[in-house]
């Protein structure tokens, strides 16, 4: 009765819930659940899918907190994306007129 792994009970996967192991089918939404990524503040990601209107910074440029990096137009609104802290731009991955998906890394900071 103890080791359910050893029991022959069909082809069920094993799921652990608070230290208990259970033989059970997994659902589609469980298998496809979003894995957690630790956020990296040095990556400027698109908060919403949209189109890049303009990019104001170049790699190597020193930028102060609050300065505008680029304009991301989405849902007919022009969003100013600003520098989160003082730093140096490492890479610019987008150019004007480019369509970006949500979470796309637009700018990398050193």
């Amino acid at each position, binding site marked *: *009765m*103890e080791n*359910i792994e050893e*029991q022959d*009970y069909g082809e*069920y996967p094993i*799921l652990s*819930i*608070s*230290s*208990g*192991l*259970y*033989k*059970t*089918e*997994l*659902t*589609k*939404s*469980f298998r496809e*659940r*979003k*894995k*957690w990524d630790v956020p990296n503040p040095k990556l400027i990601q698109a908060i919403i*899918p*949209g189109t890049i209107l303009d990019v104001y910074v170049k790699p190597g440029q020193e930028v102060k907190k609050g300065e505008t990096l680029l304009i991301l137009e989405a849902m007919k609104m022009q969003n100013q994306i600003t520098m989160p802290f003082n730093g140096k731009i490492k890479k610019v991955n987008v150019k004007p007129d480019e*369509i970006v*998906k949500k979470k796309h890394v637009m700018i990398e900071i050193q």
Partner: protein
Amino acid sequence: MSLNRNIENLRKRKIEVQKGGGDKAIEKQAAMGKLTARERILAILDENSFHEYDMFVEHLARDFNMEKKVLHGDGVITGTGTIHGSPVCVYAQDFTVAGGSLGLMHARKITKIMDHSLKMRVPLIGINDSGGARIQEGVNSLAGYGEIFFRNTLSSGVIPQLSVILGPCAGGAVYSPALTDFVFVVENISKMFITGPGVIKTVLGEEITMEELGGARVHCETTGNAHFYAKSEQECFEQIKKLIELIPRSNTDKAKKAEPKEPLKEYNIEEIVPDNPKLPYDIKDVIRSITDESDFFEVMELYAPNIVIGFGRLNGETCGFVANQPKYLAGVLDCDSSDKAARFIRYCDSFNIPIITLEDMPGYLPGVDQEHMGVIRHGAKILYAYSEATVPKITVIIRKAYGGGYIAMNSRHLRADFVFAWPTAEIAVMGPEGAANIVFRKEIQEASDPDAMRKQKIEEYKEKFANPFVAAAQGYIDEVIEPDETRSMLLHALSVAENKSVSMPRKKHGIPPF
């Protein structure tokens, strides 16, 4: 003589309107594998029971050359009829007439039949097959939608509202089904979305087909917007008829009683559930071993299958079942299953249907995604729905009843009327492994062989707490019963609860964790 001519004239007009959008448009409808609006109504209702209203309504659009266009019935057929002898109100959008587009008079016909169904306290069945707002009528078509949504909300919890999606239902139109009690969809025919694949591609560059975006399967399995999935329109109509037979006409009525029948012999309740609480089984077999003729009409079969909801009869009386499903995700509660169960509990409560809860679950599903999706808020919905419900509430604890899940699944503490437990029930603050790890942490850490000590302590904990008797000693459960007594105990409980009367504090309405 002149009277005859008038009758002749009426008949001619009727025949004209009944042509809908004309032969070509009807051919096109058939080519898409769809029945016409009229065929659908006739297929759902009892033979010769349909009475059409507002057949001769004409549209009022005067811009964009619309004044020259004749739109029969303005693209929607409305009326009343019966299903298994019970009256219902029905409307069906006619895709052959201007794509079933919704203009002001089209909406007025719908709101008129909605008002009628609310006043007469009979169910409303809405068949959606429409390209959306009639752009030529501008803001008037938006007004039409708004007035439909308002009535959906007014009628909610008063009369059953069924939405049948038999074609496109896009943009604002989707909110009428979303506000109703049950949504029926058919493979390859139903398409529901706010923005279609075209817009999504232009704005976001994401490519997706209509079926993948908002087809029947997606709404049954992924979004939870639909409740009944069918492979064909005919199968869908059978589901509608079956549901109407099971539920009451309104919130002041009780469901019609059927002839009492015994469960089928092939479902032997004692052979379904494994002893070992970690092994799966199909909870639906347990339900079928209890219900009349082993018949169980499941709702939202494909969505969050870790909880099972649906209707079954006990001695002819319709009951709502809410049951953890150990076959999927060990039967845990999570965001989606909480949503699914909570809404069903509220449905049963609104319509005087007793709720039977079968419990076998190890708790809430752990995970970052669950926490971030708001499992606290979603999980609270179950607590809210059970606590608020005043219909007879009966719980049978089959095996695991751990932690917060134990409280949520219609426990005594939420004012369950009857709580029974099988001798296999484990009512405890958590599973033996987790509890032993916490309670005996020191002993385990300090042991020369921690694994052996852990095993021993788990066994000790199991022995003492993994049973129904600790809870029974507190009076939290009413009786420990043998599995094969389950049906007779439920029948007993239902008969005792027949005149149940409780009063709740006066309020305008509560604020559930939506």
